[in-house]
């Protein structure tokens, strides 16, 4: 057995020894991720499960806790930033676990196909508190195809002067589309702002218009 003549530098230079191990083995990683997810679910170690879906208003992030759907986010809100916020506010035990959101994804598909007028899902409202929570609690009263003004929602929520606060509550709605803040519009009938962008709001209102 001959020994090597060209001494490797004391540090570095030895990574070549591992060249036969691929840096990323996609097939193995995919398989291992699926196994890990299944075992983590069985052990109730996934505090927040998420997936994304493609819709007419762009890619949506769907995230759920054990209690129910906790967050729906538009692409323009930055899915990475939204997940980082969920790690801070709920738990960092966040995994891409599409299976747990199958029902949500299916209801979303039906909604965007015009075949569903209300969502029938367990919801986790923990991300909205105080008056914002109160406002969001009134929004399901605005039926599919109908709209209400910010002022009207302020009255419904029991504080007629809080028109701006209603706007904030809608803008920070953790569950857009499912909790229909898109049905809250300006008194002059124009759509007004929307977390998903005005174009998304128009698409949703057009979809629901009779």
């Amino acid at each position, binding site marked *: 057995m001959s020994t090597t003549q060209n001494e490797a530098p004391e540090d570095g230079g*030895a*990574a070549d020894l591992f060249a036969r191990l*691929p840096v990323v083995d996609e097939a193995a990683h995919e398989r291992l991720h699926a196994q890990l997810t299944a075992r983590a679910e069985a052990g109730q170690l996934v505090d927040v499960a*998420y997936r994304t879906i493609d819709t007419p208003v762009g890619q949506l992030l769907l995230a759920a806790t054990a209690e129910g759907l906790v967050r729906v986010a538009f692409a323009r809100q930055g899915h990475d930033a939204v997940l980082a916020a969920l790690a801070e506010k709920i738990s960092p035990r*966040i995994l891409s676990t599409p299976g747990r959101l199958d029902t949500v994804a299916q209801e979303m598909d039906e909604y965007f196909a015009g075949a569903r007028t209300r969502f029938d899902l367990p919801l986790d409202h923990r991300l909205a508190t105080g008056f914002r929570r109160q406002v969001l609690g009134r929004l399901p009263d605005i039926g599919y195809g109908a709209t209400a003004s910010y002022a009207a929602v302020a009255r419904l929520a029991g504080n007629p002067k809080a028109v701006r606060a209603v706007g904030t509550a809608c803008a920070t709605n953790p569950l857009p589309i499912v909790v229909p803040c898109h049905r809250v519009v300006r008194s002059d009938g124009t759509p007004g702002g929307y977390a998903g962008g005005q174009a998304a709001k128009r698409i949703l209102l057009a979809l629901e218009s009779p």
Partner: protein
Amino acid sequence: MGLRPFEDVITTHGPTVLRVCRAMLGYHEAEDAWAETFLAALRAYPDLDPEANVEAWLVTIAKHKAIDSHRATGRNPQPVEAMPEGVGRGGTTIEDVDELWSALKSLSSKQREAVVYHHLAGLPYAEVASILGGSEAAARRTAADGVKRLRAIYEGVTP
């Protein structure tokens, strides 16, 4: 800044931890060790210091899982014959992994760990030393000895 979503940890460190497990355990045992490592990590994750070196933390867990795996299968586990599903598409063959693994097996366990943790996982010697115990300089020497030995084995087998 708090802890990142655990999914990011898998994306960022999963491939490296798999390489470490493969180098330490061979092809088949590596996948079990990887799964056990990330499951244990997920369980403990909320209590991790946000400033901690996540890779060193994962490698430490993987080390313990590798020890468990050796205990369960005896001192010199033999490669299993059956191919797990999907092998081959990723470009790695069991032979590639197991050849490296058997070369690494002829090193002392400290040398093997020092080489893998530093040269494969890319951990700085300070982290390697805290996993192995002992000084940073000792970890550096051990890794250098291990690399020398490994090169000798390779030169001997494949000139």
